[in-house]
């Protein structure tokens, strides 16, 4: 992937006019939201829209405005706890930037967009889709969807693409998030879900957190980890930065970005050497251990230390704690997964879990921490390029037949698997894809190598965006349709533990905005292909989804809205019927996976794992370095990540005043030793350059990061975007982009960047 630096000018436009008209502007509480004398009309129990943990909360509603929140103490996952995003999420509603109409691109209009009638916009959209598909074939129109949508909407999006548009190309932004974990889990366990509920963290003796900045990205999990520590657990954190949770953990492994496989191989090596292995479990429940054992033989502590940059004694300590633990929990997140070898990283982590035999029992577990609101549910029901509802495969003839049967269509008419989100962008660039519909996806900010993405989007014949605010990507759209906010629609979401929870509607859509699924159905209707897309409500979709997922791995057939409400969520798989002699899951669904003796539709009683033989797989994970390693020219590692106050591309959170105040602008974080060498002081403007672009930000000089690495949070757009620098290298299996490692050089900036004076921090 390494090549010469780009020579063309890659500076994004400032877009000041558009920003002036459509924001991001900041909303603060005022009037009714500050008035302490207002009695809300109702308290709506729902969940937070800003991460995969889906904290339960109550929205206070008065006159169709969400005026505040109130903790929902009874919801068992978070018991009233919330992070700052959850507390302030109400400010996104009734926001001055809210899109109230459809818009058409119009260079002459203020901000570059002209308001237009909704029906006309739908008609134009349908015409454009029809034109592109009839001229260039069905696959010339692609769909990009999102993992913050309710599961019902993701189901509709899959159905819309596969049945209405019949395009192969639908993918979603979970591609940038959880897919490596999903693929790794499928390969190892045959199922893709957190194996354990978070309660199992509480009783674990050793907790290994790898590449998860829990404090900032999954704040509520902090209480689980600390709670376990109060009861004597040892906490091991693997991260290139000393994150808040790493600060006082019991053992910190400052891994060099991109070297996680090496670390886990090294730990497994030591476990084997000291025989900290559960032979009985491996024998009975797994296959592949011998090959893996042979492959990690070369990963001596010395070699592991050399590659990972972690001291030998720390590696030994970690292996000992992990190896000799009675109970344990391993969790990881994007730090492990956002790599061109993300799936391997995940599988190598799973290897040490399987070798320990500590899974499928109380207090013994493994999980990936999902990031997006519906990170789990969004990847199960058919908006992934190769997937059908129920976690079924689009390439599997049986699966095709079943779903086509539910949908009432000819299985042969279902498209074949398409390509991943970034490949869609590449195909747009080559002209293979001419039209695009995106919902809940802001590729200009969130995809790597954003200059490439921008220039690709500019090539589209037709681009329609459904959104509630004019996102940075929507600035490239021809038509923008006003969609719905989380609080304006109902449905279900599957949170990080695999618990399906209810999202309740708090307010109505304002102006001409409508629920996203209605917009999709309106387009289908205007296309004259509304068959199967005539739902009246999310509940109807859910009922169909239950049928469509039945018998699949992600089986929702036993879940109903009422059951969710009664039991504070239901864990899938939750089949509605099972063969005789097999117990149905309890009222809460299947809370813990892989329990000894448990039944699943793949193993059919052969064992607890989701393979025909019921056994888990240990996969050989040879270490391969990152796609772009440092060299003479670009000698510093860049890694990216999040801050607690922002969510993903920031299209929502960059409009919420108190959250922006919290961390107004991205800074480039570097170790004082590196800073000293570069002549940069805290607060100076520093320019980071990669082969793909450059970015000037203020420096934050702190010792809490490895001296060979710099860090930039990615929530900001345009010239502040970390993704101007990141590399579009992807994992060969999961297709996740390598956000966590690329090579850059850094220097002190000659002058403050132009945007500093021209734009507000959040813009």
């Amino acid at each position, binding site marked *: 992937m390494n090549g010469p630096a780009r020579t063309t000018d890659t500076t994004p436009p400032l877009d000041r006019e558009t920003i002036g008209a459509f924001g991001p502007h900041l909303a603060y509480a005022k009037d009714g939201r500050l008035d302490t004398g207002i009695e809300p009309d109702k308290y709506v129990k729902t969940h937070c829209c800003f991460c995969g943990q889906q904290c339960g909360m109550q929205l206070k509603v008065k006159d169709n405005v969400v005026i505040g929140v109130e903790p929902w103490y009874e919801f068992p996952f978070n018991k009233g706890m919330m992070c700052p995003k959850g507390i302030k999420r109400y400010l996104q509603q009734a926001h001055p930037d809210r899109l109230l109409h459809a818009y058409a691109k119009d260079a002459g209009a203020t901000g570059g967009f002209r308001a237009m009638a909704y029906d006309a916009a739908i008609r134009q959209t349908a015409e454009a889709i029809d034109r592109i598909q009839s001229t260039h074939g069905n696959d010339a129109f692609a769909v990009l969807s999102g993992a913050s949508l309710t599961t019902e909407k993701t189901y509709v999006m899959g159905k819309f693409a596969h049945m209405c548009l019949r395009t192969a190309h639908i993918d979603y932004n979970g591609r940038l998030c959880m897919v490596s974990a999903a693929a790794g889990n499928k390969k190892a366990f045959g199922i893709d879900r957190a194996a354990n509920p978070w309660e199992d963290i509480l009783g674990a003796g050793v907790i290994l957190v790898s590449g998860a900045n829990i404090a900032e990205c999954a704040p509520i999990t902090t209480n689980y980890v600390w709670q376990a520590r109060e009861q004597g657990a040892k906490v091991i954190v693997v991260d290139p930065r000393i994150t808040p*949770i790493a600060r006082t953990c019991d053992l910190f492994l400052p891994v060099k970005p991109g070297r996680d496989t090496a670390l886990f191989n090294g730990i497994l090596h030591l476990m084997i050497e000291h025989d900290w292995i559960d032979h009985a479990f491996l024998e009975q429940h797994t296959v592949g251990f011998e090959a893996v054992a042979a492959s990690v033989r070369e990963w001596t502590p010395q070699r592991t230390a*050399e*590659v990972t*940059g972690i001291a030998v004694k720390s590696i030994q300590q970690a292996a000992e704690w992990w190896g000799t633990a009675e109970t344990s929990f391993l969790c990881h997140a994007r730090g492990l997964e956002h790599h061109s070898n993300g799936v391997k990283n995940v599988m190598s982590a799973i290897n040490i879990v399987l070798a320990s035999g500590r899974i499928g029992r109380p207090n013994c577990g493994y999980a990936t921490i999902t990031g997006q609101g519906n990170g789990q549910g969004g990847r199960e029901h058919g908006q992934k390029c190769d997937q059908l509802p129920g976690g079924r495969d689009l390439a599997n003839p049986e699966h095709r037949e079943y779903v086509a049967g539910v949908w009432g269509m000819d299985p042969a008419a279902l498209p074949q698997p398409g390509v991943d989100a970034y490949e869609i962008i590449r195909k747009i660039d080559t002209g293979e894809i001419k039209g695009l519909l995106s919902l809940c996806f802001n590729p200009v900010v969130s995809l790597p190598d954003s200059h490439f993405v921008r220039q690709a989007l500019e090539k589209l014949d037709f681009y329609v965006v459904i959104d509630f605010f004019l996102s940075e990507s929507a600035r490239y759209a021809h038509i923008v349709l006003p969609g719905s906010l989380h609080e304006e629609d109902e449905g279900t979401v599957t949170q990080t533990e695999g618990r399906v929870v209810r999202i309740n509607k708090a307010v109505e859509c304002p102006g001409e905005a409508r629920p996203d699924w209605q917009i999709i159905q309106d387009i289908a209707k205007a296309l004259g292909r509304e068959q199967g897309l005539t739902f009246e409500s999310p509940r109807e979709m859910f009922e169909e989804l239950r049928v469509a997922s039945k018998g699949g791995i992600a089986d929702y057939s036993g879940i109903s809205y009422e059951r969710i409400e009664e039991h504070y969520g239901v864990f899938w798989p939750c089949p509605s019927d099972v063969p005789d002699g097999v117990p149905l899951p309890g009222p809460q669904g299947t809370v813990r996976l892989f329990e000894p003796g448990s039944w699943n539709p793949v193993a059919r009683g052969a064992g607890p794992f989701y393979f025909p033989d019921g056994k888990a797989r240990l996969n050989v994970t040879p270490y391969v370095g990152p796609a772009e390693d440092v060299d003479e020219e670009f*000698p510093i590692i860049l890694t990216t990540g999040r801050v*607690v106050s922002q969510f993903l591309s920031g299209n929502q959170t960059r409009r919420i005043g108190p959250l922006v105040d919290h961390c107004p602008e991205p800074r480039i974080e570097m170790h004082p030793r*590196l800073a000293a060498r570069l002549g940069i002081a805290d607060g100076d403007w520093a320019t980071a350059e990669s082969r793909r672009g450059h970015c000037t930000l203020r420096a934050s000089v702190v010792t809490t990061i490895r001296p*060979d690495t710099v860090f930039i949070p990615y929530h900001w757009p345009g010239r502040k975007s970390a993704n101007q620098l990141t590399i579009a290298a992807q994992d060969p299996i999961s297709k996740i982009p390598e956000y966590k490692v690329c090579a850059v050089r850094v220097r002190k900036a000659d002058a403050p960047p132009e945007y500093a004076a021209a734009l507000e921090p959040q813009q």
Partner: protein
Amino acid sequence: MPVPDALEFFIDPGRCIGCQACIQACTECDTHKGQSMIQLDYVDRAHSTQTVPVVCLHCDSPTCAEVCPADAIKRTEDGIVQTARKPRCIACNNCVLACPFGVPKMQTKMNLMMKCDMCYDRTSVGLKPWCASACPSQALAFGTREEMARLRPHAKPVNTFQFGRQTIRTKVNIMVPRDAPTDIVDVTASMHEPTIGREILDDVFMERPDGGDA
């Protein structure tokens, strides 16, 4: 209504992750909506992510109240030291400078000191205060002593603090190890301690970032 006796506030700064949920939550409180009373500082951000959340500890004999020339700070019978009475406070800053825990905040334009009143609108009806409800690390926690003892078996709450020769007892507790040799937290004894964190040591690096002279 007074705050129920059985419900107490427990602070464990060691758990804090600096997420600011408490700050945002505090602005939702009905007794001072839109204003945060939480004090949350980085001890030394250049070297550590250590943060310290401080709410009013509600002293038994509040220094803030005694040094107030305007008699504006009152302690109610349930032990809550209320925020300054609006008609009285003359914004002299005495309380801000005298509070041993650095709690009160001065609103110069309003000529008013404001401080944490433990969400009196909530706690006086048996609810948890906003910050302790939200705090994702439960560095700020609210509940009964029994609950705390069950959840944190190796810790104990203490509420006596030493500042030089002055001993201060408070309503709010701070969590220390159960077998700590003392029931007094000597604040001034640790005053010149540097921040707590970690170092990424030199010998960790087998490879230099750029082959340079690190």
